[in-house]
C-alpha cells in the first residue's frame, strides 16, 4: 500500500453562490465539504471570491494518497457502510474504516484523504 502524505490545502468558507461561481487553476481540486465550505488543493493564494466576508485559511490538517481505482474500490467496499458514488468525477465523505475520510473519484484513480493525525491508524486499517 502506498503511504499517505501530507496534503497542503486552502480551506474556504463563503456563501454558496460565491463558491459556485469561483474558478480554479488547472490541476486544482476544489472539494465541496459543505454548501458553504471548500477544501482546495494544492493551496491557492488570494482566490477571487464574490464574498467580502469569505474566510480563507491555510489548512495543513489533512493527508492523502492516490490509489488505482480498482485497488481503492476493493478497499472502500469493505470499509464503508454507505453507498459509494458511481459517476466520475465525484466527491464523497463519510466514515471509512471508522475514520472520517474524504474521497475524490476520477476515471481510473481515487484520492483518499484523512485527518493527518490519523495517518498511522488509517494505514493500519487499510492493510
Amino acid at each position, binding site marked *: 500500500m502506498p503511504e499517505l502524505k501530507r496534503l497542503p490545502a486552502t480551506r474556504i468558507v463563503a456563501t454558496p453562490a460565491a463558491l459556485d461561481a469561483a474558478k480554479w487553476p488547472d490541476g486544482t481540486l476544489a472539494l465541496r465539504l459543505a454548501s458553504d465550505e471548500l477544501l482546495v488543493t494544492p493551496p491557492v493564494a488570494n482566490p477571487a471570491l464574490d464574498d467580502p466576508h469569505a474566510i480563507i485559511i491555510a489548512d495543513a490538517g489533512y493527508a492523502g494518497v492516490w490509489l488505482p481505482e480498482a485497488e481503492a474500490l476493493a478497499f472502500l467496499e469493505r470499509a464503508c*457502510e454507505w453507498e459509494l458514488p458511481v459517476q466520475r468525477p465525484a466527491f464523497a*465523505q*463519510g*466514515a471509512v474504516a471508522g475514520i472520517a475520510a474524504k474521497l475524490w473519484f476520477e476515471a481510473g484513480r481515487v484520492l483518499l484523504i484523512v485527518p493527518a493525525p490519523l495517518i498511522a491508524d488509517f494505514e493500519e486499517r487499510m492493510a
Partner: protein
Amino acid sequence: MSILIPCPHCGSRPIQEFVYGEIPAVPDTLTDPDARDLDRAFMRANPEGVQAEAWFHLYGCRRWVRLERDTRTDAIQSS
C-alpha cells in the same frame, strides 16, 4: 442494521457518523420564571412518538441536519 440518517449534503450515512442534538422544548404553560428555568435545565419531553431533532454530521460535512424521528421505531422523516 444501522439506522441511516439522510444528510442533505453528503447523502445517507449510518447513525454512528453523527452526534445527536436535542431540540429542547419548554411548555408554554410555564409562566413562572423559576419553573421555566427548572424545566429548561432538567425536564425533558422524551416523547414516545415523533420528535424534531438535530444531528451533527461529524464524519462528513460537519453541519447540523434537522429531521423528525419516531422514537418508537427510529423511522426517520426528513423535515
